[in-house]
Each structure stands twice: as structure tokens, then as C-alpha cells.
């Protein structure tokens, strides 16, 4: 069980770190003007030239491999919900690193999601 917990830690920190870097990159890229294939491609191309995007990729690759190994050990209906502990870590990151305005409704929502996740993981 210790190895599952350790790998879950790698998964959660990798996911959160990668997603925060990705968010910084996407905010710098700016939104696509319209959701047409050509504009989406141009938008993806702009994103690919952003440094934050590439900072996020190795972290996400690490968490992806941690996910694959965990999936080979445990059922998907345990692994995916348990990895959702990253919601708390992610919200803290959003508040303190991304400086997003995380109000009470959002926090209550995140806490409910986590409580739900704990129940699901305890199955």
C-alpha cells in the first residue's frame, strides 16, 4: 500500500504542477477568436511556442506514467477518484500561484468534491 500512496503522490504533484504551468501558458497565449478548426490549429501553434507549456509537459508525462502503473495495480474506479485529491492541491495552487479569486462557493464545492472522492476511494 505504501507504493500505491507514493505513486499517488507523484501523480498528484505532477498533475497539479503540470496543470498550473499549462494554465500560465494558456493565459499568456490568449483565447482563440472562434472555435473553427483553422483557428484552433493556429491557437495550438501559439501555445506550443510558449515556455510555460513546455515546463508543464515533463510534469504531465511523469504523472501520466504514474497513472499507467497505478492502473495496472488497481481498478479504474479507485485510481481515478483517488487521484482527485489533486483538487485541494490544485485549488491552493490556483489561489496562491495563479492569484485566482477562490470564493466560498468554490471552496465548498471543492471540499464536497473531495469528500465525495474519499467516499468513492473508500468504496
Amino acid at each position: 500500500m505504501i507504493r500505491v500512496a507514493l505513486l499517488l503522490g507523484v501523480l498528484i504533484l505532477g498533475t497539479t504542477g503540470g496543470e498550473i504551468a499549462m494554465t500560465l501558458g494558456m493565459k499568456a497565449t490568449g483565447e482563440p477568436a472562434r472555435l473553427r478548426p483553422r483557428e484552433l490549429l493556429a491557437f495550438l501553434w501559439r501555445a506550443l511556442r510558449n515556455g510555460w507549456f513546455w515546463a508543464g509537459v515533463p510534469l504531465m508525462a511523469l504523472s501520466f506514467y504514474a497513472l499507467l502503473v497505478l492502473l495496472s495495480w488497481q481498478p479504474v474506479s479507485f485510481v481515478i477518484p483517488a487521484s482527485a485529491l489533486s483538487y485541494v492541491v490544485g485549488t491552493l495552487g490556483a489561489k496562491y500561484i495563479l492569484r485566482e479569486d477562490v470564493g466560498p462557493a468554490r471552496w465548498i464545492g471543492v471540499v464536497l468534491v473531495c469528500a465525495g472522492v474519499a467516499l468513492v476511494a473508500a468504496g
Partner: protein
Amino acid sequence: MVMILAMVVCANTGDLLLKRGMTQIGAVEISAAGLRHALLATVTSGTIWIGIVFLIGFMTSYMTVLSWADYSYVMPVGAFGYATLTLFAVTFLHETVSPRRWVGVILICVGVLLVSQTRPRTTEVAVREVAA
């Protein structure tokens, strides 16, 4: 909204395909030989690759959504996929889901509903027009 839906569907399908692929490969052993075998088996598995294509679809929609909405908004709202994932796991992978897990799924859904009531964007964003 459409992009958030695409994000959830692609993520679910991708995860299920990965689980199916990894089940075919078997439990991974943490040793040099075990990890090498797992790496070879995953890059040659068709199911894993189709799963990856879906996860790329997820990435595209996710990046688009993140370019305008808060991370702390997108993250919990995307969690509504847990409800559908649980249904899929029961339907396609024949995993058993206890009543306690169903209560958890309901709590997650209520949490997602709460978050979705908040303002999606609280920070400034660089708005760029694509050259015509």
C-alpha cells in the same frame, strides 16, 4: 460549455481505454526489467494508442477552456466526469460499485454544481485576435 463537455467525454473514453490496455498487459513490476517490459508493451499496444488519441482530444479542449477560464473553475467543473466514469466502469468494465461509492459520486456532482455557479474567470487574460 461544448468544450467542457468534449473535455469530459474524451478524458473518460481515454481513461477507460488505458485501463483496458493495461489490464491486457498485466500488473507492472517495479524493477529495471519490469519497467522496460511495461514500456515496450505500452508503446506497442493498439488500445493504449487509441486511448492516447482521446487524451489528445481532451488536451486540446482543456487548453482552449484554460485560455479563458480560471484553473480553479475548470478543475472542479470537469469533475462531473466522475459520475459518467462510474457509469462507464460499471457498464463496460463490469466493475462493482458499492452504495457508498454512489453517495461519493452524488457529493462530487453537488460540489461541481456549486462551483459552476461561480464566475468562470477572475483574472485578466490576454485577448488576441487571429489574423484573417
